[in-house]
Structures are given as C-alpha cells and as structure tokens.
C-alpha cells in the first residue's frame, strides 16, 4: 500500500545521521522531526534564524517572536542559537547544513527540481528553497509520486519553472525510495505492498530497476 505522508517522513528520518544539522521544508518534511532515530543527535535549522528548533510550545506559552520558517510558533532547545537571515543563509550556502529535506511539484531524472511557481496560476515565491537546493550537498525530496490526476511527478524533464538544477540525489514518494544518478531514477526500495510494475507505471522518467527491489522497513 502506498505510504501516508507520515510514513514518507518516517522513511526519510532513517537517512538522518548522527551530528547532522538538518533543514526541513514546509509540509511532509516538517514531519520528519517526529521520527528521529534513537541514539542520534541531529539539530534542526530554521532558515528564518534559528538552530536547535524544538517542538511547538505548550499551549499558552506561544511567543510571537519565536517562529519557524513556516511561520509556526515553536520553541528553541538548550544549546540552540538565534541569528539574522544573512547568517542563516551563510550556513546554508556555506554547506554547514548536512541535509535538506523539501517538497517538490516535479523532479526530473537529472536531478532538477520545480517547487515554487505554476505560471499564470500560483506564484508564492521560492522562499529559501533556491538557496537550499543550490547549496546542499545532500537533498532529499519528499513528494507524492503522482499528482491528483495520476500524472507522474518524476519526469524526464520538468515542465514547471525550475527551483534548481542537477541537485536532487534522493526522492522518497508514497510509492518508492529512489536515487538519482546517470540521468535516471534508480529504484532502491518499494513501499510495502507496492509492486515494481506500479512504480514503473507511475514514473515518466527513466526508471532503472537492478535486481530484487526490497520493501521499505519501518
């Protein structure tokens, strides 16, 4: 069965490594914070100016001056720090953040990503996404494999305006965990109960299937 958004986040959380600084985008990526493996220390960076982002505040303790990049009230953990936006993006651009997880409307087999604009329809802006994808050494995209009409979002070429080029290395969808290399999507794991054929059918870009493809483990 296809993964829920929570399960996508849970699978991505398995990729976290000890001592990593991590930036989580809005949407599914935010949920990753709920599934940090035991025995590892990771620190969440919020690009509006915080390291050590903690959980939502206890009801009644919200502080208008302490929000995350999604404008949600949050807390800061012991050992965290606060800084301005130039410093925040110095961290990002300077590759001090080890992992970026973000959502996408489209990803292409050469690692391009589109997630900020639908011409004539929706223009919310790229926020920090262009800086993040242009800079991060390690980018995981969290997304649905297809759109509501069933059309694939894993493409040969993105049709929407790009957010970044040749940058995405890993994609976790509701159907599969894929790596991008050699101008193709390499199928690494299947969602439990989802067949290789189903994934092939849902992937417009070149899909490489080498050997037996294991199911994800949670």
């Amino acid at each position, binding site marked *: 069965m296809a993964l829920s958004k929570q399960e996508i986040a849970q699978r991505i959380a398995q990729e976290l490594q000890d001592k990593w600084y991590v930036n989580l985008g809005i949407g599914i990526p935010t949920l990753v914070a709920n599934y940090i493996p035991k025995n590892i220390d990771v620190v969440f960076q919020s690009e509006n100016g915080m390291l050590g982002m903690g*959980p939502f505040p206890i009801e009644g303790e919200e502080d208008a001056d302490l929000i995350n990049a999604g404008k*949600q009230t949050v807390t800061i953990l012991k050992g965290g720090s606060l800084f301005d936006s130039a410093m925040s993006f110095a961290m990002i651009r300077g590759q001090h953040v080890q992992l970026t997880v973000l959502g996408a409307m489209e990803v292409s087999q050469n690692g391009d990503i589109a997630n900020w604009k639908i011409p*004539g329809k929706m223009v919310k802006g790229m926020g920090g996404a262009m800086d993040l994808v*242009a800079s991060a050494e390690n980018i995981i995209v969290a997304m649905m494999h297809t759109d509501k009409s069933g059309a694939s979002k894993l493409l040969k070429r993105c049709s929407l305006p790009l957010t970044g080029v040749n940058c995405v290395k890993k994609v976790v969808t509701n159907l599969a965990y894929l790596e991008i290399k050699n101008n193709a999507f390499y199928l690494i794991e299947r969602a439990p109960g989802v067949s290789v054929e189903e994934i092939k059918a849902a992937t417009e870009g070149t899909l490489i299937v080498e050997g037996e493809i294991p199911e994800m483990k949670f």
Partner: protein
Amino acid sequence: MINKVVNNAQDALLGVENGMTFMLGGFGLCGIPENCISELVRLGVSNLTCISNNAGVDDFGLGLLLKKHQIKKMISSYVGENEEFERQMLSGEMDVELIPQGTLAERCRATGAGIPAFYTPAGYGTEVAEGKETREFNGKMYVLEHAFNPEFAFVKAWKGDTAGNLIFKGTARNFNPMMAMAGKITVAEVEELVEAGELDPNQIHTPGIFVQRIFQGKDYEKRIEQRTVTPKS
C-alpha cells in the same frame, strides 16, 4: 554619544515621498515595523517599491499598504498567505520581483557593507538567473547579484538605546539587521528605548552607526500567523 531619538513615527518618517524605495524588516509578521507601516498608511505615499521578505497578510503588515494600492513593486522571496497580493500581481496592478531568500538577505547586507556585487549559487539554471551574469568557480556555477539602493529602511527591534544601538529578540531578528545597515536613512522602532550605556556593548546586534532615527514604538500587536501548540498534558 550621538543622539538619534525622534519623538514618534511621524517625525521618524519625515522626508518619505511617493515613488521611493523602502526596505522593511520582518519574516512573515514576525519582527515587522508595525508603527512605521501604520504611518506609511496614514501618509498615503504611493508608487512605492518595497523590499521585504514577505508581503504581510490581507489585513496586517504590508497587506495594509497593498489594500490602499500604495505599492507599485514588491521585491520579496515569498508572498503566499495574501489574497489581495495575489490578485494585484496576477492582474498586473503591481509588479513583483521574486528572489531567493538567501540572495535577498545577502543583497541587503551587501548594500550596507559597500559590496556592489557578489556571486551566489542560488537560482543558477532557473528563471531567477535569466539576464544575469553567471560564472564558474571551482567547478560550480554561480550567479552575479547586486546591492540594492533604498532610500529608507524601516526596522523593528526589541530594545534600542538613544545612540541607535539595537538588540533583537528571537526570530524577530531575521532581515532587520541587514536592512538597518542598508538604508540611506534607517528608522528603527523599538519596544523598549533606553539610555545610551544601558545595553551591554558586547551584546548589540546592530551598532548605532547604522541607525539615523530611533523611536519608542507603541501599541504592538505582534500578531501570530500560525499558532501551533503542544496541548497541556
């Protein structure tokens, strides 16, 4: 020590005119110069170019200026959460330049720091880089980005002193320090104005040299955009 104090928002905005370019601090509704925005609405100046990470919400922040059609052009990184904004943008009533958030922050800093241009990887290969110089350094491609040239910068701080020194709180710091550096005239409104010498010089975020006018703000609403909480257990 040079005294930068003015009486109120009205005095702080002396010289503001139609057609000017402003920087306004804040991320979402966090750390926005509420008093300055109210005064801009009251003055009714129009044809403004506003450089601000976001554009407020329909009835607060820069949304108040939008509603009165005072803004000709917005330069931002993210403008969701604002229906009137979207309407004016899609209808062509307002011009919008969207730029990556880190590029926006760095361009603000460059403006204040006398750096006319710098290279950044953000936006390479996208429409953001169209018409801009690109260049390879150490095997990676970068885009040349330039400083701004704003007439005024409006920033909001937590504490400030009569010498113009500022301390910000939490994530309300965001774009305020770089914008404070960048204004030809920088106006700082503060929640608490103290005498020079009361702030620890080692803990000042924005040195007073960058601030031309400072005033004690009032009636802060500090609206929360997304109130997310953990229920009491």
